[in-house]
């Protein structure tokens, strides 16, 4: 059943992948623009989901299967959820939030363009002579390839990452607990548990 696919050209011709890539890229760009221009906070977060999902599809089209699903799992599944969570905990009114505009849009645009220019230039320069052959079934075990290069060549950064994550974790706990000291005790009169063992 599946083997038959190798003899047929499949649903997307090679150029089809490129066309799809371009279209998805445009959609992603559009979603990103809406994300930063919309006046409604939660809508911005949801458009961010669309933009991040679009990027995941782009990864998929570049046969970076594993990275694509990491993108979905980490960015869509947890970072955006964290973001929404934070918005809901603080304040995210339905409708426009006029105070969400910091009146810096021209500076922001300049920074964004500069950052984009730098990134494109750096990436294009770094990978100028490297090509991914998306057309010849490199999808086989993309995860395995990632894993073997990670644990053959990048072990030290990998271990350093764990230290970094630990630092982030401790930092988050320390920050949130110091904030808890400032807060008044819980309104129900119970002793605030965050002040338990100090």
């Amino acid at each position, binding site marked *: 059943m599946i083997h038959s696919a190798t003899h047929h050209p499949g649903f997307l011709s090679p150029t089809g992948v490129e066309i799809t890539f371009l279209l998805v890229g445009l959609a992603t760009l559009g979603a990103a623009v809406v994300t930063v221009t919309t006046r409604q906070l939660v809508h911005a977060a949801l458009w961010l989901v669309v933009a991040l999902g679009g990027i995941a599809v782009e990864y998929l089209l570049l046969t970076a299967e594993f990275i694509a699903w990491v993108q*979905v*799992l980490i960015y*869509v*599944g*947890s970072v*955006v959820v964290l973001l*929404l*969570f934070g918005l809901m905990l603080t304040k995210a009114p339905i409708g426009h939030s006029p105070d969400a505009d910091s009146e810096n849009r021209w500076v922001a645009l300049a920074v964004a363009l500069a950052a984009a220019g730098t990134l494109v230039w750096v990436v294009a320069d770094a990978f100028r002579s490297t090509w991914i052959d998306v057309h010849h079934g490199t*999808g086989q075990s993309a*995860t395995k390839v990632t894993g073997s290069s990670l644990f053959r060549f990048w072990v030290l950064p990998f271990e350093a990452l764990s230290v970094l994550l630990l630092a982030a974790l401790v930092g988050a706990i320390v920050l949130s607990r110091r904030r808890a000291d400032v807060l008044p005790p819980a309104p129900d009169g119970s002793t605030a548990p965050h002040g338990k063992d100090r």
Partner: protein
Amino acid sequence: MNDTLHVVLRLVAVLVAFLVLPLLVGQTEHKVMAHMQGRLGPMYAGGFHGWAQLVADGVKFAQKEDVVPADADRRIFQLAPAVALLPYLLVLIVIPVGPHGFVGEAVDAGLFFVLAVMGVGVLGSLMAGWASANKFSLLGGLRTAAQLMAYELPMLLAAASVAMAAGTLSLPGIVESYHWWWTLWQLMGGLVFFTAGLAELQRPPFDMPVADSEIIFGAYTEYTGLRFALFLLAEYAGIVVLCGLTTVLFLGGWHGPWAGSVGWLWTLLKTAVLAFIVIWLRVSYPRLREDQLMKFAWTVLIPISLVQIALTGVVKVVTS
């Protein structure tokens, strides 16, 4: 054209499974719950033991008015059920049912794909909770998010343990390399995975986000008619997906006597038994409190799954 036909057939099969299996689970839940409580459950719709009750419910839901509260964010409110439902459809296609390519579509990073896509479904609950403009919905949405964050992790870790054992992320690949003693070896991981999955589906005893005695129906409070039905469908599709995944990862999928010819039956049977357990747990246990819920994930499930990973790693390196 043969290829196209194959694809169309698979799509139809997946869609049918997506629509029928959750109904079966739902009807079983009606009946099993009833009998566990000394009742009979639905007896009239369809004649024989109320088999068509959920069909009748569906007809009723479709005829009901679709109320969008005046204060709600209309577009997001209406979109939320679709966001909650569709990830399960996507996941269903990669779950292998039988040997020799009896699967909607084999994806190389299948396990990772499944975990990533299932995590998206929670966005639906969050959207619903926020867009309803209702205190109870908002609280439900917050609880959903917190619960997802607490339980996604043990699920990931337990799944990683299986991937270590099999040395692949492909779901058919995992089942192919399964041996019967894996069930014992991965027992802790399996329990963690199943429990965490239950919590992610917000099934009792982990149904704090929809606790009716506290926050009405959580994020789904304001929903009526078809949109409400889609949320319910998402819950039952979630049960099917969770039980199917647990079967594939920890219970050896199609393995069993005469696996070559009736392997798919084994998968379905194991899935059905797990679905029964899901229902059974619902009837037997009271709801966990919100802080117990969080504590359970972080101080019980995650340490256990870390131990399981260590065990898997050591055994694997020693035996290979």
